[in-house]
Structure formats: structure tokens, C-alpha cells
């Protein structure tokens, strides 16, 4: 069966939209340019901010991921459970993006264990002033 050009264009557009949607689900934007009214509340997502004030929006399913749960625990230990605003993680966006990358690669159990260990052993170095440099050196493989 032949597909005419018009149909092909339509199909391509649809795929582009789908891809864009996928990107958006694990997206981040500079919080300096977002105000509460501009912040789109994405369906099926929860939000965390990093220490450098970047907003990340994850699908709810990420909440069952052990590493994500560990990150939330670290946030609680660092900042307590905020009653007035969003969740903030005590490290920068580059590190979080790196972690997301690892999570998406679906690491095996051993790698996950090693990563969890390296996150928790680095906890003590999560000082407000120096955490950025400390977090950059975590687990390289």
C-alpha cells in the first residue's frame, strides 16, 4: 500500500508530538523564569527542585524506584519535610540528570546497590556549601 505525502506528513507530526511528550515527562526548566502561574502542572507527575533551583518533573511511577525513594529520604534528612513549598534535593541538576540517566538505563541489581551505597556514603559530604563539587565525583563507570 502506498502512503501519500500528506499522510506521511501527518504521521511524522504525530510521532514528533509523541516524542516531545516523552521528553516533557522528564523535563526541567529554569525556575528563575517560572512563576507559579506559569508553572504548568503536568498530569501524572510529581516535582522536585535541585539545589541550583532547577525544576524537574517526573512521572508518578518513579516514586516506586528505590533510588528516587533514597533521594527523597536524603532531602528529608537535609531539609526536613517542607510544609510550605515543593521538595528540594540537596544536590545540583547535573547530578540529578546523571542519576536519571542511570535509572533509565535500567541497571542490574548489583549496580543499583553500588549506586545506593555511593549516594549514602556521600551523604555526610552533602554540606550546603560544598555539595556541588562532592556530588560530581560520585560513582563513575
Amino acid at each position, binding site marked *: 500500500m502506498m502512503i501519500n505525502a500528506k499522510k506521511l506528513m501527518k504521521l511524522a507530526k504525530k510521532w514528533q508530538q509523541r516524542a516531545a511528550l516523552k521528553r516533557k515527562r522528564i523535563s526541567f526548566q529554569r525556575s528563575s523564569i517560572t512563576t507559579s502561574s506559569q*508553572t504548568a*502542572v503536568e*498530569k*501524572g*507527575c*510529581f*516535582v522536585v527542585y535541585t539545589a541550583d533551583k532547577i*525544576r524537574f518533573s517526573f512521572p*508518578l511511577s518513579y*516514586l*516506586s524506584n528505590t533510588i528516587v*525513594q533514597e533521594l*527523597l529520604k536524603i*532531602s*528529608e534528612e*537535609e*531539609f*526536613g*519535610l*517542607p*510544609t*510550605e*513549598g*515543593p*521538595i528540594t534535593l540537596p544536590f545540583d541538576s547535573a547530578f540529578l540528570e546523571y542519576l536519571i540517566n542511570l535509572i533509565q538505563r535500567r541497571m542490574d541489581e548489583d549496580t543499583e546497590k553500588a549506586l545506593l551505597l555511593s549516594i549514602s556514603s556521600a551523604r555526610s559530604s552533602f554540606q550546603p556549601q560544598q555539595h556541588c563539587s562532592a556530588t560530581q565525583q560520585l560513582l563513575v563507570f
Partner: protein
Amino acid sequence: MVKPCWRIGAGMERSKINPTKVDGLTWYKDLGLHTFGEFSMAMIQANSVMEDQCQIESGPLTFNNPTVQGTFVGVYDGHGGPEASRFIADNIFPKLKKFASEGREISEQVISKAFAETDKDFLKTVTKQWPTNPQMASVGSCCLAGVICNGLVYIANTGDSRAVLGRSERGGVRAVQLSVEHNANLESARQELWSLHPNDPTILVMKHRLWRVKGVIQVTRSIGDAYLKRAEFNREPLLPKFRLPEHFTKPILSADPSVTITRLSPQDEFIILASDGLWEHLSNQEAVDIVHNSPRQGIARRLLKAALKEAAKKREMRYSDLTEIHPGVRRHFHDDITVIVVYLNPHPVKTNSWASPLSIRGGYPMHSTS
């Protein structure tokens, strides 16, 4: 021997006329009848194990004087585990009845004694379990109790739950806070601790921009928390995060309730009693406005929903998505919440309602994850 007849099945009530319901993580009783009117209860779980407990008891408040009739309402917000709040729910009302029977009436002293003995007995349990279950020493609970009797409302509070009265005023309603709270982030609570421990420079420590007693806990009074009451528990095998670096001789936390007594007037419409999980998201006035302007049926659940909508907004997510989150990890989005609304103004109440005492317990057992 006190044998409480209301301990029939945890989380159940003995009367089939008053069904309570569970919907996912929410437990509720949309509308019921107590001695002086109607009430509504609702709870939602966020922790992996529900740490809040609540109860309402209506009928005779002594064992020997049937003319002392009233309503007892309790909200218990546990921390470090559910054991202390469950212990309060099992014990405080029978103790109140016992002490009320001695003087054949309800008084501030009777209520305070019930708090003191509940705490004493819980600490005994901690001592007994210390060899096998030392972490019980770090379990505690806030305790908010309201007693409505003889045209008076007694509000006794240990910790940071809150009771708010809705008083009708010029077509609207005004919030009157009845409870005195004990949280280190209140100036009054800090002053009290500093004056009780003048020689301890670290009695209050600022952590995460919040004041904490010894840097570990926000409430300045509680039931349980044995590790902050008796030095004998301040050692291994208690987890290091609960151990204080220095020895202490004087209890750091007390279980004494602050008691207020208010004479009810015809303008007094209802009282809202709730754990701090609700008040984190709703102001006193917002809460009384919702109750004043909504139907009675399901009012407690309506308050719960209003608080959760606010919590979702703060976390920059949708309310419908928030309700999908599983207990445990859900604690990062809101706390366990308990809310009880007790209506006061005379409503058509069946004349025989005194004859049928009411006993409802909420919050146990609920969803549990390992």
C-alpha cells in the same frame, strides 16, 4: 477492674447503626450522633503505617454516676511508630472514667490525671519491652482530648494537634482556638523550655530552619518518647540518632496537658479537632468557614480534601495525582491527617440517644506496607 466494653475489634465500633468506611487510604464516618448533636470523622494515611489514631465516646463519663453524661473526643498523632497513639486510644478513656468516678464528676484534674497515668503506663511498657524491643523508647504521640459535659467544653492538649471552635457571628463564623499547643516553633513553648532548663544551652536547637528540642523533636510535650524523659533509655541499643550526647537528670519532655475550659453559648456551632497534618494546610478561619458553609454529611472528609488540595498545590502537582501515591513515600507529600467535627448546637436529637452509648475508634488497622 476496668474492662472497657468498647474494645471490640480495632478500628470497629460495636453498633451496626453507625458504620464506618474505608476507601483506599481514607477512613471515615460521614455523620453520626453523639450525646449533644452530630459529628463527622475522617482520617488519611501517609506513613507506611498509620500513626494517627482517634476515637469518640459518648454516654456516661463515670462508672457510678449516670447523670454525668457527655462526649469524649480524642485525636492522637503518633511519631516514631504507631504504638504510643494506639496505647492512648486503648487506655485514656477508661482512665478518664476511672478518675471521674472517684469524684463522681468531670474536672480539669480528672483529665490531667488520665493523661499522666496513660504516660506512666506507656513508659512501663517501654521498660518491659526494652530488652527485646528497645526502639519503643523513641515512640511517642501527641494527645488532644475534648470533653463536652454540663454545658462546658474541656480541651486538654499535649503536643501540637489543635481544637478550634466555630462561633457564629453576624452572618458568618469566627474561629476561636481552644487548644494550647506545644511545638518548639511557638515562642511560648520555647520560653517554657528555656525557663525549665536554664542551664542547658542546647535544650533547643535550630535545624532545617525549624526549632527542635535537643535538635531531635519539634513537640515540647508528649505521651511516650521515653528516651527524652528518663536517662536510663539514653543508651545502646537505642538508635544513635535518638541518643543525646550528654546525661540528663530532669525529664526533657513532659506529658502534662494544657487544659482550657469554655462555657458553651448558643452561638457556638461546632468544634474541629485535628492533627497538625490538617493545620499545616488550612488556617483556623479557612477550616471553620468550610464547616459553616457546607452540609454536615461528610464534612470531615471535605476538610481532609481541602487540606490535600492545598498540599498538592504546594508540591506543584495535581490533587488527583497526589491521591495515587502509595503510603510511605507519600509522607514526602503530606502527613497523616485526622479530623473530627463535633456539632454543638441543638439539633433534632432522638430523646433516647442517651440510652445508647456510642464508641467509635478510627485509624487502626489501616493499610500497611512492609
